[in-house]
């Protein structure tokens, strides 16, 4: 390292290349910019001219300066400049103990810590010191001092652990008595017992500490409150205002994990905690599997979610609703109270709620469901639904499931049920028996005050015992369950209100609902909740927050899991029990981050105010920028920049959105009213004529028929949608461009779906198809889906759709062509015409310049003369009639053609 003031150079010899700069100066001045080769006829006029300024073949001074600066920056960059390089540290010769915390908090910059440890080990090795390495998250054991070479391979493979060091006292006991120095690579957190260990180490030798200044961010377990997911993040140290992004991840419907939502948490200045609420729809919320602070790669920034976020959709259907004022007697009141905070409730009638596809349907004292509803209900249960039924007076009074088992009840019922402890009975109210093993309620404490006064009784069928999951102390079934398809049907033999028993008043009721996976658990499971269950790790987290498959982990007892902190035997992860999953996170609900406090006697490294700052990248970037400016400058000098800027400005100016908006406006305009349309040819005069012509036809239609179109529209075949129009008038000009492939696609679609195009070559068909317009039309129509044509026969439906016509004049009077009639068209009996084709001819082709005959100006006066005198006016009238006939033909289709059959129909009706 070679230093100039605060600047050091990694490869100072490269700076010698700066000597070459003047050579470059001379070289560049000699080479002018490359010429452009242009073909130019006017060169004859240039011959013999001389350039005025002979200096211009030299590169201008500012370009030279620019290039020299670029080169200087490049040389400077390659010399590897570093601002404030760290000096090497002094050594001693006592053995050195490297202490690493090895906790999850180390994971945020683990490679840097390992690098640091390697550097220390190398230095110590060079000084001939022996070394030992301990990781505080390991089981305590006496450190083994060995040569640096032996230690190095271990360092490379070292990984942090996803929990915090705990057993400091045993580490103190395991320390050897010989003297050694300590280098403590700390994770920056105050772990319990750390101060004692530090004191013990300080009595043995000197202690140096390494800490990184990188802030530590951690995410607390999420909770669900007030209908939203509550996110809380901690940071260390408290700095200025900053924002962190938390990403909520889960499985998408295809089963692939992806980010489902994202929230931003803002740390106020000086605060270590930030909170926010994330409002998610239940469907999305139920899919969440974990939250993580984006950009943080350690287990503290990840929090797994278990069932506590899941909200089941529960449909409540009570039988005797509507009794005002007797809220406490309502069959569903207690259920609502128990479920409202922890589940999404759906109410309504049965048919409606089944379509909402809830997870659970609760039928409180409903005996009968109609056949159709029952079928739907069975289908829903078989697909995995849970049907929970409560007994009650109605169920007891009905004759349902008396003689044979009802598919929607787990057992057969005996008539009437029984009453206990009433004024007219001998027995006392019965209490519950302890839940048997194998029951989902196993392990729940049975409160003695719960008593049952009345219940419905199950018939003693062979599988009754197997279906019973809770009994009274005398052995009568209280809750029975049967499996139906993938779902299950559960019957509680008492009412859901306090009428028959005090069960709904007890906490057991809520716990039972939880065990039935109906309601959701509170965020923090109590030991009692988990008692009696064994949990198996489903997924575990490593220190970097990545999900790993568990390997060789034994089952964990529920009571050990509740409220436990992760440790070597209990890695953080998701633990699955019989019917629930519990997440064990690195950061528990009450874990608080506190920074490690080091006494003033301990030197702390890593947090130096002036960090090393390599300038190589910046210098090279500067060199590149200068070279790019040089490119522009060189282009400018050689006169090639003009085309470049023109292209750029074109790119920037083109508004891409305008077209889409235009298309919308066009669609709205075309569809709000019926519109006749013409094809825009690009010839302003022809287009104007088409517009006026269709306007004239429109006025005639308006006056004479019930077809009342709005102003005609021009259609650009390339850009506009044709589907909105029933009819297109297409004047063919000789120099019309051939439509593109896309436009042909639209046109063919238009023709196939019942549109009609009137081609007008405006040449009166005189040239026999050899006029320029006709030839153009042949070219255009070649790619169109047009059926065989024939000259319009005298009995074609066009002759009588509205007016009776013999010819179809426009300004000219030539023949027109329509789709050919089928060869088997037969003359109808007693009719002057054949019963012709059913469809509407997709094209009408002629050259009679109809638009000119139809055209009227703004005052309704014809624009062009037709023929001479009154004969001409008659011809114009016939032209209008033809227009009306053709539009009628478009709209009524084969209606007029079908009139042929009227006599036959009347005859068949016997009239």
């Amino acid at each position, binding site marked *: 390292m070679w230093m100039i003031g605060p600047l050091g150079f990694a490869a100072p010899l490269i700076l010698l290349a700066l000597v070459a700069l003047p050579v470059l100066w001379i070289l560049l001045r000699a080479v*002018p*910019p*490359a*010429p*452009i*080769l*242009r*073909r*130019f*006829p*006017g*060169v*004859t*006029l*240039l*011959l013999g*001219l001389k*350039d*005025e*300024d002979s200096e*211009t*073949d030299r590169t201008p001074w500012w370009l030279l300066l620019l290039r020299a600066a670029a080169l200087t920056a490049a040389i400077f960059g390659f010399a590897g400049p570093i601002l404030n390089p760290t000096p090497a540290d002094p050594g001693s010769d006592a053995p050195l103990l490297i202490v690493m915390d090895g906790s999850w908090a180390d994971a945020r910059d683990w490679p840097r810590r390992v690098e640091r440890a390697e550097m220390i080990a190398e230095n110590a090795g060079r000084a001939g010191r022996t070394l030992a390495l301990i990781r505080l998250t390991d089981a305590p054991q006496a450190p083994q001092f060995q040569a640096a070479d032996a230690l190095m391979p271990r360092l490379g493979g070292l990984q942090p652990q996803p929990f915090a060091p705990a057993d400091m006292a045993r580490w103190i006991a395991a320390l050897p008595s010989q003297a050694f120095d300590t280098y403590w690579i700390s994770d920056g957190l105050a772990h319990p017992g750390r101060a004692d260990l530090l004191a013990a180490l300080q009595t043995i030798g000197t202690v140096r500490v390494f800490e990184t200044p990188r802030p530590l961010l951690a995410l607390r377990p999420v909770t669900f409150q007030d209908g939203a997911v509550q996110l809380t993040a901690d940071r260390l140290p408290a700095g200025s205002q900053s924002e962190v992004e938390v990403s909520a991840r889960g499985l998408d419907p295809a089963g692939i994990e992806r980010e489902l939502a994202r929230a931003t948490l803002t740390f106020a200045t000086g605060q270590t905690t930030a909170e926010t609420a994330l409002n998610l729809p239940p469907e999305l919320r139920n899919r969440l599997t974990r939250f993580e602070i984006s950009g943080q790669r350690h287990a503290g920034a990840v929090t797994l979610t278990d069932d506590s976020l899941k909200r089941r959709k529960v449909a409540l259907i009570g039988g005797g609703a509507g009794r005002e004022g007797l809220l406490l007697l309502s069959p569903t009141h207690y259920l609502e109270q128990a479920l409202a905070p922890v589940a999404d409730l759906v109410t309504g009638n049965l048919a409606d709620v089944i379509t909402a596809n809830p997870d659970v349907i609760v039928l409180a004292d409903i005996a009968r469901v109609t056949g159709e509803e029952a079928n739907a209900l069975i289908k829903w249960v078989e697909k995995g639904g849970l049907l929970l039924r409560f007994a009650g007076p109605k169920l007891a009074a009905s004759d349902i499931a008396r003689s044979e088992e009802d598919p929607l009840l787990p057992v057969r019922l005996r008539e009437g049920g029984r009453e206990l402890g009433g004024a007219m009975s001998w027995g006392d109210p019965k209490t519950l028996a302890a839940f048997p093993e194998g029951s989902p309620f196993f392990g729940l404490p049975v409160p003695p005050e719960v008593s049952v006064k009345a219940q419905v009784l199950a018939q003693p069928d062979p599988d009754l015992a197997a279906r019973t999951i809770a009994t009274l102390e005398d052995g009568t079934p209280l809750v029975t369950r049967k499996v139906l398809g993938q779902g299950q049907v559960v019957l509680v033999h008492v009412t859901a209100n306090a009428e028959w028993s005090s069960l709904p008043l007890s906490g057991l009721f809520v716990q039972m609902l939880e065990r039935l996976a109906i309601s959701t658990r509170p965020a923090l499971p109590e030991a009692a909740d988990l008692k009696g269950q064994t949990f198996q790790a489903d997924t575990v987290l490593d220190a970097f927050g990545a999900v790993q498959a568990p390997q060789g982990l034994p089952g964990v007892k529920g009571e050990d899991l509740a409220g436990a902190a992760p440790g070597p035997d209990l890695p953080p992860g998701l633990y699955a029990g019989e019917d629930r999953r519990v997440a064990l996170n690195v950061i528990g609900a009450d874990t608080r981050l506190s920074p490690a406090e080091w006494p003033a006697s301990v030197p702390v490294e890593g947090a130096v105010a002036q960090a090393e700052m390599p300038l190589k990248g910046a210098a090279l970037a500067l060199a590149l920028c200068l070279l790019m400016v040089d490119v522009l400058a060189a282009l400018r*000098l*050689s*006169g*090639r920049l*003009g085309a470049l800027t023109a292209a750029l400005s074109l790119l920037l100016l083109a508004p891409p959105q305008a077209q889409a908006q235009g298309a919308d406006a066009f669609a709205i305009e075309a569809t709000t009213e019926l519109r006749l349309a013409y094809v825009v040819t690009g010839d302003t005069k022809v287009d104007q004529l088409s517009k006026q012509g269709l306007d004239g036809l429109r006025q005639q239609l308006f006056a004479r028929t019930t077809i009342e179109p709005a102003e005609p529209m021009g259609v650009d075949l390339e850009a506009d949608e044709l589907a909105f129009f029933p009819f297109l008038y297409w004047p063919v000009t*000789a*120099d019309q461009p051939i439509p593109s492939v896309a436009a042909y696609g639209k046109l063919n679609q238009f023709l196939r779906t019942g549109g009609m195009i009137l081609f007008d070559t405006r040449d009166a068909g005189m040239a026999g198809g050899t006029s*320029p317009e006709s*030839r*153009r039309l042949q070219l255009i129509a070649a790619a169109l889906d047009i059926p065989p044509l024939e000259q319009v026969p005298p009995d074609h439906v066009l002759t009588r759709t509205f007016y009776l016509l013999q010819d179809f004049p426009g300004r000219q009077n030539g023949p027109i062509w329509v789709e050919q009639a089928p060869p088997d068209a037969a003359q109808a009996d007693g009719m002057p015409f054949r019963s012709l084709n059913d469809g509407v001819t997709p094209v009408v082709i002629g050259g009679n310049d109809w638009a000119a005959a139809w055209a009227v100006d703004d005052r309704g006066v014809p624009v062009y003369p037709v023929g001479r005198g009154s004969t001409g006016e008659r011809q114009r009238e016939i032209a209008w009639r033809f227009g009306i006939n053709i539009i009628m033909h478009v709209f009524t289709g084969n209606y007029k053609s079908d009139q042929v059959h009227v006599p036959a129909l009347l005859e068949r009706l016997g009239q």
Partner: protein
Amino acid sequence: MTSAAAPSSLRARAAALGAALPPLLAAADHLAASVAFGEHGRRRAGQGDEFWQYRQAHSGDAARAIDWRRSALGDVQYVREREWQSAQSVSLWVDASASMSFTGDKSRPAKSDRAQLLALALASLLLRGGERVGLMGDLAPPRPGRAQLERLAAALLQNSIGDDRSGQAKRIAGYTLPPETGEKRIENYPSAPDYGRPEVTGIAPHGRVVLISDFMGDLAGVEAAMAAATDRGARGVLLQVLDPAEETFPFDGRTIFTSMGGSLRFETLRAGDLRARYRARLAERRDRLAQLARAAGWHLASHDTGQGAQPVLLWLYKALEAAL
């Protein structure tokens, strides 16, 4: 060209010609239709179709010349005279040299396109007026009638497209192409000459001549052609077609200019400095042309391909009408 290569290349050329012909014809017709029909009569009695005047019969008038219907109104015999309509021969020359294929911007047509369009539109107008129109240089002798227009179009396109392979072009360029490598070589070798020189053959005596070119080459050829035409009693019109880039010289920086064929070459280090001098030389050349035209009683106009073709067609028509 060997006979083996001829049929296929002829077909290819015919197809190429067929592709270009209808649009050019349509565009020319379109352009011609915008110019109103003028009078084509000679404004005196003679052979023709249109009524000119009644005059009293002289002795010597044939009895069948007397218009009996008019004469029956009075005592004097009248003869119905018709306007003398004579057809003129107009010979067109469109420069087909390489320099005409220049365009300074892709959005503008090449000069040759514009020149052909103007020539054909003018021919269309003249043919409608009953004149005989042909191309100089034995390409198409002057004939009347609508069908001549198609022949003219074919000949014009042939002259510009087929130049490469026609014997005429080879004669001028002074070398022949090996037949087997014809297609390939044409890309590299400009076979049309760099600058055009009017052909003086095919000018009808006392006919009219229209020369359309950029007149960038040696003016001696033009002078000679004009002299030859004047010798035959023909007068005419010069139309200089230039690209805007040739008028404004919008170049800058170090540039090597070559002629379209590559036969001329000029290098400059700062093209922008030459602009004023180039334009002065262009103006000088135009003056020279104007002088030539004035001396011979011809008309001269300059047309810029950046502008529409219609005004200059109108001018051509009027100038020719005055010359007729």
